[in-house]
């Protein structure tokens, strides 16, 4: 039985869900124009850009943890490395980002391959593997602090150039929005395709029971390595985008533990291993972050209550409540309520 790619991607998806997805895609495509008529439209576009960016890197991280069950708390390594490689190539050698991104992907895959090979070869799992990923990210951070060719701890800056255009990834937020949206859409389809592939089933088997997977004849080391390589490569693209969007890179922030943690939030809060988890989680978390920023401003302006950290306290409380009461993430619960749960459709 041969299926067309479209059939394979949509197999078993309720028609209603497909329709809703199409509507979401259309909305996101039109969003900048809809936002333009709103007050503070530029601000809302910047928020939307963040939502799409975090859903993209969340999706990339999800391949490793959600699909293959390997907890990485060091994805800042691939983000930072990707950003640094493309930015350094552009600033120091004049190689444009559309070419540089491939070098960035290669560099991140090399790093991911090293971390993965060492970790899996010595059969580290769970917390131990997670600590190895942290250690490599921290190690790289300290090395880049002393790496003068890319500016060391003083940072690397991308200038705003007069002849800047889409060819060297310079321009308005609109350009960055559509680039990251295209990336997010592509990685979404890729993840769906991976999940329906043999490799995807191997990953799920390893996630559920590595020993049983091994016994069933799956090459566990190779399969887990593929998850890290794909995840690292995709994450590096996000790093390149982020470097050119923010136009500056510092080892202290590019490789920070906090950045690695940021990557994991959306997919875990949204629903690990699901395709919509990173998207829903990212929208929820960025939305909450914005809500508490507004709230803290309101408190400061109206009541004169000013304290650093108030915004993050609200965010922390929200995070704690979501984790305590939606352990499996928000999306599985939401999907049940919207009737998009596939298990329900399959029941007679």
């Amino acid at each position, binding site marked *: 039985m041969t299926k067309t790619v479209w059939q394979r991607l949509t197999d078993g998806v309720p028609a209603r869900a497909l329709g809703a997805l199409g509507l979401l895609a259309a909305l996101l495509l039109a969003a900048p124009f809809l936002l333009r008529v709103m007050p503070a439209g530029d601000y809302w576009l910047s928020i939307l850009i963040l939502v799409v960016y975090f859903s993209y890197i969340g999706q990339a991280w999800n391949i490793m943890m959600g699909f293959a069950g390997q907890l990485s708390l060091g994805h800042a390594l691939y983000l930072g490395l990707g950003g640094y490689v493309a930015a350094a190539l552009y600033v120091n050698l004049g190689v444009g980002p559309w070419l540089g991104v491939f070098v960035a992907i290669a560099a991140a895959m090399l790093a991911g391959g090293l971390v993965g090979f060492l970790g899996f070869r010595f059969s580290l799992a769970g917390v131990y593997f997670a600590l*190895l990923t942290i250690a490599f990210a921290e190690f790289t951070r300290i090395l880049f602090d002393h790496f003068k060719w890319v500016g060391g701890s003083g940072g690397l800056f991308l200038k705003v150039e007069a002849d800047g255009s889409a060819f060297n990834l310079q321009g308005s937020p609109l350009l960055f929005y559509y680039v990251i949206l295209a990336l997010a859409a592509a990685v979404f389809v890729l993840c769906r395709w991976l999940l329906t592939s043999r490799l995807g089933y191997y990953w799920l088997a390893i996630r559920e029971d590595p020993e049983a997977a091994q016994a069933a004849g799956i090459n566990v080391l190779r399969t887990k390595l593929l998850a890290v390589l794909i995840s690292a490569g995709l994450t590096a693209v996000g790093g390149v985008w982020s470097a050119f969007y923010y136009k500056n890179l510092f080892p202290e922030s590019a490789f920070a533990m*906090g950045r690695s943690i940021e990557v994991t939030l959306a997919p875990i809060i949204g629903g690990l291993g699901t395709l919509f988890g990173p998207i829903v989680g990212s929208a929820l978390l960025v939305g909450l972050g914005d809500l508490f920023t507004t709230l803290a401003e309101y408190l400061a302006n109206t009541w004169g209550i000013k304290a650093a*950290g108030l915004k993050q306290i609200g965010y*922390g409380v929200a995070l704690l409540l979501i984790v305590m009461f939606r352990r499996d993430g928000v999306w599985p619960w939401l999907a049940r309520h919207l009737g998009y749960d596939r298990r329900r459709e399959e029941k007679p």
Partner: protein
Amino acid sequence: MSADPGQFTLTLLQAIVMGLLTGMVYGLMALGLSVIFGVMRVVNFAHGEMMVVGMYLAWLAFDQLGLDPLVSLPAVAAALFVFGYVLQRTVINPFIGLPEHMQFMLLLAVAILLVNACLAIFGPDTHGVQVDYMFDSFNIGPLVLDAVRVYAALAALVVAGLLWLFFTRTRAGKAIRAAADNHVGALVVGLDVRQLYAVTFGIGAACVGAAGALMLLIVQVHPFLAIDYTLLAFVIVIVGGLGSMSGALAGGLLIGVSEAVAGVLLQPSLKSVFSFGLLILVLLLRPQGLLARRS
């Protein structure tokens, strides 16, 4: 660096001794993490944040009441015990035995709350204590030992000793070890495992609180130290052996020395290269830790 080899050896020796003294406090901090993991298999991702809370409490006692951190230590430890006990009972208990990423996210939320509560209350500035013996030192041969580090290390040793007595000599301590060794068995013989878990988390928190009070003698506190201490505690317990008490202390000494020596041999900004390098080596070659038994 001095060209005189004798002088260099002395500098190195001096750094090693200083590293050992600081390492004792590191060890006490890591001990808390190790106890919590050893008993309930929960990795406390909010450990550095609890350390910083302990530091702030000790600073508050100094600032408001003029108490030396060595004097306020029991009170700080007691406060963190209560905090840890209540936190385990209300928030963490339902997550015992759940997948690591859920525990990680839960404790991450706790960590965000703790560090930002400190930030909101105390602000981003650094605070330190000025004790009378701040500039005192002991001379042992050619070596000069800071009095603050000597007292902090001795106090850390005393707290660790008390903990060892608790786990080996008291009924509650033995019961906790029994629950750690065999969860079902402990339930079968009628131990109140939920209560023991809460006490264990309290003890872990008290340990790190005590370490925080002692650390305040050596460094100044600000909220953003927290994540560095969390990482440091992870490095130490992995190097020593996760869940092993003597391993945590030995790991603390080792990391304390390696940081101090790296500060002499390389630039101070490169000091954590040694600890992270050591962590990677230990993870790859002896993931159960240097001192832990092979399971």
